[in-house]
């Protein structure tokens, strides 16, 4: 996807966060979830691995984010905390490679039913639109 207005974003989401926040995963687009965000649901955000984050970028994503529960509400106790450490690791790698670390983010969202899940997708889309396509594109 090379359209700057439709950046390719991969969202790795905790099953609990995603479900609680969206209420209706089947009708996300109708609820305003940006169509340029590809969802990958994980049993817990702590399941995300560094290679998986890097591969998503390598395979063409312009931006990546992980959405998990607030640290103190993680169903698996430490999942969100672990996920954040892994996202921070990749941010650091990006900085060393002169790639904007803002292309990857960790969002912790309340598990109470709300629109946070959709809001962070919109926020990340706007952020990546400003940054432009991945520096790996067209190379």
């Amino acid at each position, binding site marked *: 996807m090379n359209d700057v207005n439709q950046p390719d974003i991969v969202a790795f989401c905790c099953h609990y966060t995603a479900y609680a926040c969206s209420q209706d995963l089947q009708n996300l687009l109708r609820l305003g979830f940006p169509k340029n965000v590809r969802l990958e649901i994980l049993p817990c955000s702590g399941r995300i691995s*560094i290679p998986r984050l*890097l591969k998503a970028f390598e395979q063409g994503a312009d931006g990546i984010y992980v959405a998990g529960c607030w640290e103190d509400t993680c169903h698996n106790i430490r999942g969100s905390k672990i996920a954040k450490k892994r996202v921070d690791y990749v941010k650091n790698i990006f900085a*060393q*490679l002169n*790639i904007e670390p803002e292309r990857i983010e960790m969002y912790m969202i309340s598990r109470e039913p709300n629109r946070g899940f959709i809001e962070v997708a919109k926020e990340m889309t706007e952020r990546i639109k400003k940054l432009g396509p991945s520096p790996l594109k067209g190379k």
Partner: protein
Amino acid sequence: MIVGERKPIQEIVGMLKGMKKVLILGCGGCVSVCSAGGEKEVEILASILRIDRKKGGEPIETIEKTLPRQCDTEYLEGLKDEAGNYDAILSMACGVGVNYLADMYPTTLVFPALNTSFMGVSEEQGVWSERCAGCGDCVLDRTGGLCPIARCSKRLLNGPCGGSQNGKCEISPNVACVWQLIYDRLKGLNQLEKLKEIFPVKDWSTSLHGGPRKIVREDLKL
């Protein structure tokens, strides 16, 4: 175990400049345990290098492998049919593995991806610290099992220096004075008399002062 740490990415990128096909070789031994050079770290580093090269418009082909150990002939021999296929081998083993690869494959470029840090322990997940300096002439029987060579900043063998304050070393409030630890431990064991024993001057010839070290066990040789 031997504890290592991955070199800064740009240092590794610099080593591989111009290379098109590189074997990234992990080690399933110590560096795997300390999360520096095992299978997972190989996968991560390979991905990082591909991203960097793709960004620069000069893609690199990475082949990922992890041997059970890189410090044994039998495992390194397994590369003999393929070592020549690569522009270089980037070893994620400790310096021992890098050396042995270079010994065994004289016509293949070999680079280190790690800095070999020390011989130490895993205090907790993500924290390692030094315990042994491999001096080849162990003195732990006289020091309550705590090593003044690896753990004293001055490698003193006859007690603490004036920089020992409140149990800490003068180099940092986070570094324990090992001579304080030795004293406290021997006192607790009722063995303070040990510190009064006179012992011969330490033989440093076993600690690289006598050149590279080697052990030959005739009882084990085939």
